[in-house]
């Protein structure tokens, strides 16, 4: 799978989904075109999905937030008879590289999280309306919805058949949602995961797998009624949507990327990509009307979309760039002014959506399995939201004092309200709280210093950066750090970094990603699944997996 994957799409290009809008209710039909897989070598039968199907879903969910703020309830259903969704396509998984599988699972879970959180973040509630088979990843799609309705036609069922069928972890993030979100009893969950054909009817409600089962003849009517009820009960702020237009992006011959505010320089020999984020190139909107008029060209939204696209591009298309370097250049005060405008206007749906998008984007960076470092250079604008990057990455280095021949403003970090609650990590703590888990008073002290430009010495003193270097040491120290990083095993680094990034309490989200990276990564690499005689490789041949019986 060497083809470059593009995460940009729009409704005119969809192969697999249809959306119909009816006032506050949108209906999302999954109707996968079996011959439109992202890669060769498999057909997407029975509404099974590959990355391409999920890229479209992610696009729909994103557009639902920005282009259709009037929508309060989204009904997710199937456009096919007799099948809701058969889950991730097995032949695609069987043929995919390990790295692609893991990236695929991560991206699909991020998309699931996005629409799962849509209710809390912006009052858009997703309902799964299930007719027909709903298996594996198909049930995961439903699990991420906040209300699940199943028809009682005595054959429609929900299932996680991975253990008996494929010898992999049931539902990459689904299993965690079964116990943590649906709060199903663990012994019943064990039974459920061993049943290839799943659970249907009243038992599915009793076991908490779905919220309601409905007589088949009344199903569509009850789904419509429920959607209306939820829409009526919602106090979501609405308005007229903005259009998400294609990003301006050029890819250089060497693989570098150039957006309007984000630049990605590639150094293949060093295995490194440097992302440079620009500060504001426009004034703060004079009014909410102006913000809406700017639409997707507004500074913070454009920056988020470009950075998001760059991160996804690097994850899927540049597997050997193991180190991501984050830089910023611009006026921190101007950045904070843009940020404050949104923070002060959270009751406006668009301001709220842009901030909620940043929350998701920062989380996406948190779970990116590359070594990440931030360089706080002169002229940089690590302030407020952008300062969050410093505590998302694994290490940060900051320039101290003036550098010869460098007349840019001296490097400083400025904290704002944004650093104290609006952008929690997956563990539900802020990045600062996570960073200072043993010294909660340090966070309180920092809160007092909001708005101050903290230069190197102060930043180091208060624990905001890893190390500071002056003109004499900077180049060498940074070079040595990068060379050393490049010499380590990428696997060991992925494991180490993922362990270190998420201190503090577990949440459903941290468990999903933690278990995904640990367990699914491990199982996907074991011969019982992916060896030549493993169940995943043999799936479809009619011959069962041949398992080594040793317990590990």
């Amino acid at each position: 799978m060497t083809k470059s994957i593009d995460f940009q799409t729009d409704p005119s290009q969809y192969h697999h989904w249809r959306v119909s809008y009816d006032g506050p209710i949108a209906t999302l039909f999954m109707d996968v075109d079996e011959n439109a897989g992202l890669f060769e070598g498999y057909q997407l039968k029975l509404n099974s999905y590959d990355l391409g199907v999920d890229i479209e879903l992610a696009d729909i969910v994103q557009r639902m937030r920005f282009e259709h703020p009037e929508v309060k309830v989204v009904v997710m259903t199937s456009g096919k008879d007799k099948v809701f969704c058969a889950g991730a396509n097995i032949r695609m998984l069987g043929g995919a590289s390990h790295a692609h599988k893991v990236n695929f699972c991560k991206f699909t879970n991020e998309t699931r999280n996005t629409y799962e959180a849509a209710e809390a973040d912006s009052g858009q509630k997703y309902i799964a309306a299930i007719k027909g088979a709903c298996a594996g990843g198909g049930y995961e799609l439903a699990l991420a919805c906040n209300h699940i309705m199943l028809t009682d036609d005595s054959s429609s069922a929900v299932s996680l058949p991975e253990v008996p069928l494929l010898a992999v972890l049931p539902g990459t993030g689904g299993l965690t949602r079964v116990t943590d979100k649906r709060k199903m009893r663990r012994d019943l969950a064990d039974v459920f995961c061993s049943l290839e054909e799943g659970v249907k009817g009243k038992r599915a409600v009793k076991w908490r797998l779905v919220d309601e089962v409905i007589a088949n003849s009344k199903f569509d009517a009850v789904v419509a009624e429920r959607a209306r009820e939820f829409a009526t009960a919602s106090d979501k702020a609405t308005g007229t949507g903005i259009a998400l237009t294609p990003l301006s992006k050029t890819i250089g011959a060497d693989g570098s990327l150039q957006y309007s505010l984000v630049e990605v320089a590639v150094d293949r020999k060093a295995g490194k990509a440097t992302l440079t984020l620009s500060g504001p190139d426009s004034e703060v909107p004079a009014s909410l009307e102006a913000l809406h008029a700017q639409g997707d060209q507004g500074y913070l939204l454009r920056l988020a979309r470009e950075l998001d696209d760059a991160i996804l591009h690097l994850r899927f298309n540049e597997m050997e760039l193991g180190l991501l370097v984050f830089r910023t250049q611009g006026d921190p005060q101007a950045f904070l002014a843009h940020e404050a405008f949104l923070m002060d206007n959270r009751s406006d749906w668009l301001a709220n959506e842009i901030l909620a998008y940043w929350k998701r984007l920062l989380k996406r960076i948190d779970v990116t399995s590359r070594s990440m470092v931030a360089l706080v250079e002169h002229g940089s604008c690590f302030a407020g939201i952008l300062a969050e990057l410093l505590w998302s990455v694994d290490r940060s280095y900051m320039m101290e004092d003036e550098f010869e021949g460098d007349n840019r403003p001296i490097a400083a970090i400025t904290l704002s309200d944004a650093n104290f609650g609006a952008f929690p990590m997956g563990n539900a703590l802020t990045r600062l709280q996570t960073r200072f888990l043993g010294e909660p008073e340090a966070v309180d002290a920092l809160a007092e210093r909001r708005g101050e430009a903290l230069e190197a010495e102060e930043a180091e003193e208060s624990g905001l950066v890893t190390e500071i270097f002056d003109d004499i040491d900077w180049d060498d120290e940074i070079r040595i750090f990068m060379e050393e990083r490049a010499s380590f095993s990428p696997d060991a680094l992925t494991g180490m970094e993922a362990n270190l990034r998420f201190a503090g309490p577990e949440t459903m989200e941290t468990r999903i990603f933690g278990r995904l990276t640990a367990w699914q990564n491990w199982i996907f690499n074991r011969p019982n699944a992916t060896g030549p005689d493993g169940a995943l490789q043999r799936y479809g041949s009619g011959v069962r997996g041949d398992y080594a019986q040793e317990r590990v």
Partner: protein
Amino acid sequence: MLDLINVSYDTQIPNNVGLSSDKRVLKALEKWHPGYINWWSDLIPQNFQQSLVYLRTAVSVDPKGWAKFDYVKMPEYRWGILLAPEVEDRRIPCGEHAGQPAWQEVPGEYRNMLKRLIVIQGDTEPASVEQQRFLALSAPSLYDMRNLFQVNVEEGRHLWAMVYLLQKYFGKDGREEADDLLRRSSGSEEAPRMLGAFNEETPDWLSFFMFTYFTDRDGKMQLESLAQSGFDPLSRTCRFMLTEEAHHMFVGETGVGRTIERTCQIMTENGITDPYDIDKIRAFGVIDLPTIQKKLNLHYTLSLDLFGQEVSTNAANAFNAGIKGRYMEHRLTDDHMLKNDTYPVWDFEDGKLVRKDAPALTAINMRLRDDYTRDAAGGVGRWNKLIAKSGVEFEMKLPHESFHRQIGVFAGKPFDPAGNLLSQDEYDAKATEWLPTKADGDFIQSLMTPVSEPGKYASWISPPKVGIDNKPGDFEYVKLYMA
């Protein structure tokens, strides 16, 4: 000692499986029984329930004399549980366990797969009774009415056979599935039958004959492959069911044959030589041969869809597990494992039909469908002999298997009955020549007037050559209850 050949009547449920000493299963079946009787009573119109029907009832599984004929009211029919005699030292015939002793108990690792196969098979049995529920009202003779009821009660018994397996071998889940078999109902919006073809109504007698010829033959092929199961109770059940199934196909083949015969007779008697002189032929109250061909096209292709995808993981799994074999597995001479074998499967490449080699294990459905097509061709040949004998120039043909398909590689593509790919417009323009139209259906329906005088037949169908149980032509096969 248990008498496993003759049917025991010491419980409410006739059986040759020693039910009286298997309290657990007996209790489960007795609990299920009232629901079944309710289902039957709600289904068949009341005056027929009270009528005396000359039916055969299985009394033994000895191939030499397994049934007896007598008048019986259908609700009192002795539905029973009958398994073909156990074959000594039977071995698993195929797949990775080939050669090992056949399972007498459900192997844990295949429990779900087996259960699903049994449920799907079981779901089709009551479905056809539901599809045919109103036909008795327009029966062309008492003889045909009796055949309809015979088919119905035996499909009911086949349901019993599957329910027995579910209750005996699949515990609580099995009992729930058995209940669901009565909950689902053909054409129901609430809980339809599992396979699409079993949710269509059988609107007239020609459809019934075509159904029993073509669709019951799919049932026969499925039973033939389940009779090869390494799970011995399933194999024995299906082997006995096949004995009964043969009669259903006889009803279909002779029904279509008698319809054709009557049409040819009328044409000859009235000097009509052009089989396409449809209005003239229909004016005599018979069904023209081109319309019969259209019905054949419809039912044959719907039945082909029942075989599923040409290349199928489920079919491969079932074969490899040894729980479903191929047609006549025991007569095939390969290794019965299909490790490296291939089988040519239809595919569609650059607008052309080609047969390409696929791993034989995954092509089990394709192979069974090919066996089916060969099997179905036999009766078509015999119908053509009837036509030829009458002097009418016409030939019935099985359409190409790409025609009018909803499942598999040909699904939704506009092929004509000869297997040529057309444009959608060309296809739509000619479809009424190939498939029955509403007007065709209305015409056939107009002929469906009941005939209930012994020995008399409706205008559109000839009498049978021989009676059931060698009874004379004017035998009263059904003593109608007149309320």
